[in-house]
């Protein structure tokens, strides 16, 4: 648990430092994730302890969003005044994005399978 947490935090720290040094417009934790992935690939496996800690952290991922969600209190007036725009963007925008992403990925998969199948003839 402690080793795994240290590994994860070290990757995040390295990611944050890399962002500061390089000026990349990418957030530190995202770079940290890529660093951890690279480390796992180089090492050729995940140790049981690291896997367990990661699974615990990710198993309660939704909890981590609660404090930010309560922040709606601070923006109550803005949300009340512009609620039709915010509601439209939230509901319709989200559904459109979900559909476009899923259909693009499924379509590409089918296209590739079809081309692969075609080349056998």
């Amino acid at each position, binding site marked *: 648990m402690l080793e795994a947490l240290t590994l*994860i935090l070290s990757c*995040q720290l390295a990611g944050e430092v890399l962002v500061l040094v390089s000026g990349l*417009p*990418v*957030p530190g*934790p*995202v770079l*940290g*994730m*890529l660093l*951890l*992935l690279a480390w*796992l*690939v180089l090492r050729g496996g*995940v140790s049981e302890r*690291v896997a367990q*800690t*990661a699974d615990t*952290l*990710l*198993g309660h*991922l*939704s*909890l*981590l*969003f*609660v*404090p*930010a*969600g*309560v*922040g709606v*209190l601070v*923006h109550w007036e*803005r*949300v009340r005044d*512009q609620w*039709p*725009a*915010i509601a*439209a*963007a*939230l*509901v*319709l*925008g*989200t*559904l*459109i*994005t*979900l559909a*476009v*992403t*899923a*259909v*693009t*990925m*499924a379509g*590409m*998969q089918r296209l590739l399978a079809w081309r692969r199948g075609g080349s056998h003839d």
Partner: protein
Amino acid sequence: MTDAPLTQIWVYLAASPLLWLTATLVCYLIALKIYRLGRENALLNPVAIAVGLLIALLQLTGTPYQTYFDGAQFVHFLLGPATVALAIPLYRQRERLKTLALPILAALLAGVTTAALSAVALGALFGADTKTLISLAPKSVTAPVAMGISEKLGGLPSLTAVLVVSTGIVGAVLGTGLLRLLRIRDDAVKGFAMGLTSHGIGTARAFQVSPVMGAFSGLAMALSAFVTALLLPPLLRWIGLVGD
């Protein structure tokens, strides 16, 4: 004067981060219990219920958000390490990743562009001001990333955080239904679409459906955070929402 000790206890507790940290965990566990009692029905989203309970508590006790956040920041902080930890489910899916590289790339670019443009266009159509529009643009990306982007472009980072959480809840509540309607059956595709649209909250929902769906949702969340951070500034400049 009988309530004097009680008031003293309250004054002491209200000043320490312990109270609201504990309250956050308790409200989340209650929300989780409700969600499980409702047979994990997507409508009973645990984040939405927990946020509702906490808002009610803060209003009842007259506690300002800043006081609440002094305690809750310890939970909020874990978003960063959790993002890093996504490397593990990704690593486990490495074989499928190789075979799906091209469809993933196409879906990623289409999804990230659609997420930002649909949010800004719909917001503008219904009369949101520029600050709200910029805050809406990165709403499909995981919270720490979206807040950073919003701040850089002149939006309101804390409003973005709220919009990010709401987007996550909407996607988690309506997502599985929409995917069924679209007849998408591959868990990899379902997960990828869910994670791209609804980041960590969608990923949490996806992990409950299947480990494959969860892993691909996590992958989409990570990739879209990366690509949105790179693409959103020029995209918003191109449509004239932010200056040079």
